[in-house]
């Protein structure tokens, strides 16, 4: 499988009055063509910053990509000029935002907002653009497109708006779609419909998707591979099966334990105690140490190396070290 995106050693910082926030601290991951990668983690762990960094949509100042490369089809987006980046956005990489209620401009018609990207990048005639817009509306499941194109966002429901946002993102036929919590603001029935729409689109267009979410239910439904993020680092990656059935990192295990399950009698959820570290001065070692039930002395001092368990399953945890395994056996 061809790698469409390879992010290496990505660092993003934000300068504030209180100091520098190291939001993303050396993230490595890749995305294969036609695959769905889910990036999961709790609020503030750097998921959205990572996705915005790929689109180069981090407001500068205060944000800045300080290190690392974002190889998209072999080209390093981190080194692109703003003008060159504009020809990538919406055309090769598109993005979907969390809240469909605010993602559409209230003063422009749906048609204008749909066709705008097409008109900007592909120099098509008005009629052709309209044809394409109607085609996209059909694809995302909005009935009576010619009439609906003339309407304004406030005339649509939340779920409909998210469909339109998806249509806008897909109209230039991009190769990569970044969906930043696309279902978080929707109610559960609509969530299911939107996820089905994603699957349908992927089958139809073969698009690669990066899905940013904290909802493991969503992940279980549509992801192929999962990357777990914590405090600005990816701590574990693997296929959906590997992460759900053989989680290795204590944080991943904690995350899975905090999801309600229907098959267990135990009614209480097991939360992860404590809070994530302060990213103004992130710890030198593993950032999860303070909350980890298996924390050892070394965890706090040195960040663990990447351990490759299988070709697809990797984890950064001292428990994978041979010496730790012996220790566990002894105790």
């Amino acid at each position, binding site marked *: 499988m061809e790698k469409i995106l390879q992010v290496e050693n990505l660092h993003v910082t934000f300068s504030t009055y209180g100091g520098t926030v190291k939001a993303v601290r050396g993230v490595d991951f890749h995305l294969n063509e036609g695959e769905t990668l889910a990036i999961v983690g709790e609020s503030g762990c750097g998921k959205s910053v990572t996705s915005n960094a790929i*689109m180069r*949509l981090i407001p500068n100042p205060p944000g800045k990509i300080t290190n690392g490369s974002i190889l998209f089809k072999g080209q390093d987006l981190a080194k692109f000029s703003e003008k060159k980046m*504009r*020809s*990538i*956005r*919406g*055309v090769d990489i*598109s*993005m979907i*935002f*969390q*809240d469909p209620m*605010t*993602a*559409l*401009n*209230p*003063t*422009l*018609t749906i048609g204008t907002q749909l066709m*705008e*990207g097409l008109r*900007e*990048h592909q120099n098509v005639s008005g009629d052709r653009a309209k044809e394409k817009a109607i085609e996209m509306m059909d694809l995302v499941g909005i009935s009576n497109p010619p009439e609906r194109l003339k309407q*304004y966002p*406030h005339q649509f429901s939340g779920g409909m708006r998210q469909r339109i*946002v998806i249509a*806008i*993102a897909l109209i230039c036929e991009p190769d990569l779609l970044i969906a930043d919590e696309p279902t978080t603001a929707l109610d559960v029935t609509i969530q299911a419909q939107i996820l089905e729409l994603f699957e349908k689109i992927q089958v139809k267009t073969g698009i690669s998707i990066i899905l940013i979410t904290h909802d493991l239910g969503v992940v279980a439904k549509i992801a192929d591979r999962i990357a777990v993020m914590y405090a600005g680092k990816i701590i574990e990656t693997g296929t959906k099966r590997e992460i759900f059935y053989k989680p290795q990192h204590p944080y991943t295990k904690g995350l899975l334990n905090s999801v309600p399950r229907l098959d267990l009698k135990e009614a209480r959820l097991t939360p992860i105690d404590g809070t994530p570290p302060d990213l103004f001065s992130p710890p030198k070692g593993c950032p999860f140490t303070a909350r980890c039930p298996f924390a050892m002395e070394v965890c706090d001092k040195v960040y663990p190396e990447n351990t490759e368990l299988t070709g697809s399953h990797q984890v950064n945890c001292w428990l994978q070290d041979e010496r730790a395994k012996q220790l566990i056996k002894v105790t």
Partner: protein
Amino acid sequence: MLKYIFKRFGIMLVTLWIIITLTFILMINVPGSPFNSDQSSNETIQANLEAHYNLDEPYHIQYLLYLKSIVTFDFGPSIKQPNQSVNDLLGRGFPISFELGMMTIIVAVISGIILGIIASLKHNGFIDYLAMGLAVLGISIPNFILATLLIQQIAVNLEILPTATWSSPAHMILPVTALATGPMAIIARLTRSTMLEVLTQDYIKMAKAKGLSPWKIVFKHALRNALMPVVTIMGTLLAGILTGTFVIEQIFAIPGMGKYFVESINQRDYPVIMGTTVFYSAFLILMLFLVDIAYGILDPRIKFHKKGGE
């Protein structure tokens, strides 16, 4: 839409009627009469004059006569200058005042919005501070001070522009500048703050994610949303500019309506007071109505009619 306009028209007429009635009540309660200052006139002449202008009638008859004059738009001759009708005065003064007011509004709105956009895009930079510093000055300096300053520095000391009157485009620069600076500053500050708010909205990020040029993002996506509050305060600004024209016309010796308005009150020239008041209020009410219409055009969420439930 049409139904809304008719309804608004009705409300506007009622507003106008209230203004007319209040003006009439105030007018008859102000001591003195148009003929008081004439030392030479004796009582018989005064009585005759009053009878001529129907001023000897009981108040309710006078009131009805005034209403009639307004409905027919014939205010009769001025008492102080009997050879001129009020309509003549308005016809002569209004175009000039209108020109001054309109130019002021156009200058204030365009320069205010541009200044606000630049300040918001260079947020917290040198240009932002400079623009906002100017805006604070513009708001704090009253237009009559600015007018005198401009005359003294630019017209008298530097001799670049004429000091007064209203005869060529060059004559218009100073009065329009003096009158426009205040509203411009208010619009600039408001545009800046609403632009800053709008620029952080998701739909702006979405527009960026579409790969649109910064130009399009600002003018197509941000500005229209940012202008909503600006349109809202336009009504107040219009009233301010309107009253501002009285002062500016006095300072620059511009032969507009303002002169007649002020003079007529001092001289108790009842028909002129009535004529100018009605005219000014009708104009302002009409402008406010246009502002409301503009609001609906800018924001599709504002509906003028209720069609079914929603």
